[in-house]
């Protein structure tokens, strides 16, 4: 198989978990190349990732998840990768699930694949978060007819077309749901597949219940405006 898949791992202070994730990706075979984007961590993320043989891009200034992931897409696009998978560096996304996301991009006419925690599993999230995710999903269905249960999932794969688009245009603050919408509006086919996810082992979620309301408002507003945008 001479497909080259970029596994893009945005990492902010993930020194404890990053090596395990990279080792997991390596077990998938030779077609997968790990690209870690260190978003100005203050710990040993870079050293631990390089020790596992990953390519590490070090951002000189903290950009947040959107800017970090986009850097990965830019790298993967300019280095001729056929597809890119976004995987969290905290071990939430088991690398053995990656092929489930990648395979449909080749031959099934899907351009972007989202890994869903909720399809066919009983993954638990907090009440507020669950409500938020449901609201976003409802919004997407009502405005575009898209059916995505887990729009906030950061476990997703894109083909080269979407990669090039995201290298140019990618939302910055809470990019997951909005990027789905942008890809859809650009005319790409977005689909969802059930995956198994772990609960995070180290660190805390970047979305505390505290920020949930702000998050929801911002995401929904941004997506609403996107509907009127020329993408």
């Amino acid at each position, binding site marked *: 198989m001479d497909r080259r898949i970029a596994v893009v791992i945005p990492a902010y202070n993930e020194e404890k978990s990053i090596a395990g994730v990279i080792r997991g990706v390596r077990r998938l075979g030779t077609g997968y190349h790990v690209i870690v984007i260190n978003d100005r961590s203050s710990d040993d993320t870079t050293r631990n990732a390089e020790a596992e043989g990953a390519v*590490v891009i*070090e*951002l000189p200034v903290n950009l947040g998840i959107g800017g970090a992931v986009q850097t990965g897409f830019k790298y993967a696009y300019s280095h001729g990768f056929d597809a890119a998978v976004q995987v969290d560096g905290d071990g939430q996304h088991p690398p053995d699930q990656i092929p489930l996301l990648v395979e449909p991009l080749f031959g099934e006419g899907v351009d972007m694949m989202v890994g869903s925690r909720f399809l066919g599993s009983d993954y638990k999230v907090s009440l507020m978060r669950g409500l938020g995710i449901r609201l976003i999903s409802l919004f997407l269905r009502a405005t575009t007819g898209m059916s995505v249960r887990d729009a906030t999932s950061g476990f997703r794969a894109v083909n080269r077309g979407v990669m090039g688009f995201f290298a140019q245009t990618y939302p910055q603050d809470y990019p997951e749901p909005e990027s789905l919408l942008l890809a859809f509006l650009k005319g790409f086919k977005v689909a969802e597949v059930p995956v198994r996810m772990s609960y995070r082992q180290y660190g805390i979620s970047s979305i505390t219940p505290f920020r949930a309301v702000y998050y929801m408002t911002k995401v929904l507003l941004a997506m609403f405006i996107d509907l009127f945008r020329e993408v």
Partner: protein
Amino acid sequence: MLQIRLFVGVVSILFFIATFEFIRKGRLREEYAILWLSTSSIIAILSLWPGLLGILSEMTGLYYITAVLAIFFSFIIAVLMHYSITISRMKEANKELIQKCALLDLRVRDLEHGKGNEA
């Protein structure tokens, strides 16, 4: 009334001088300088020649202090809006530069380690 006029006049002249100094030292770009120089000029002229305000209100029909306040607030809001747009544009440019910088940094490290010929 005279004291207030004197005060406003002095402030506007100080404002004018400060703006001029900032441009001279290169700390304020010309595009903003025009805005602030004209603002301070208008305030200065109005405080030195209060009759002008009467002529203006005759011409425009703006007799009420609320109308003047509305104009004042619109001006402030427009300036703030302009700053928000400028900040957004700068953030985007900044992000692109940071990303480019990081990608070039990786390329330099690769070249130093003789891995430059890879894909």
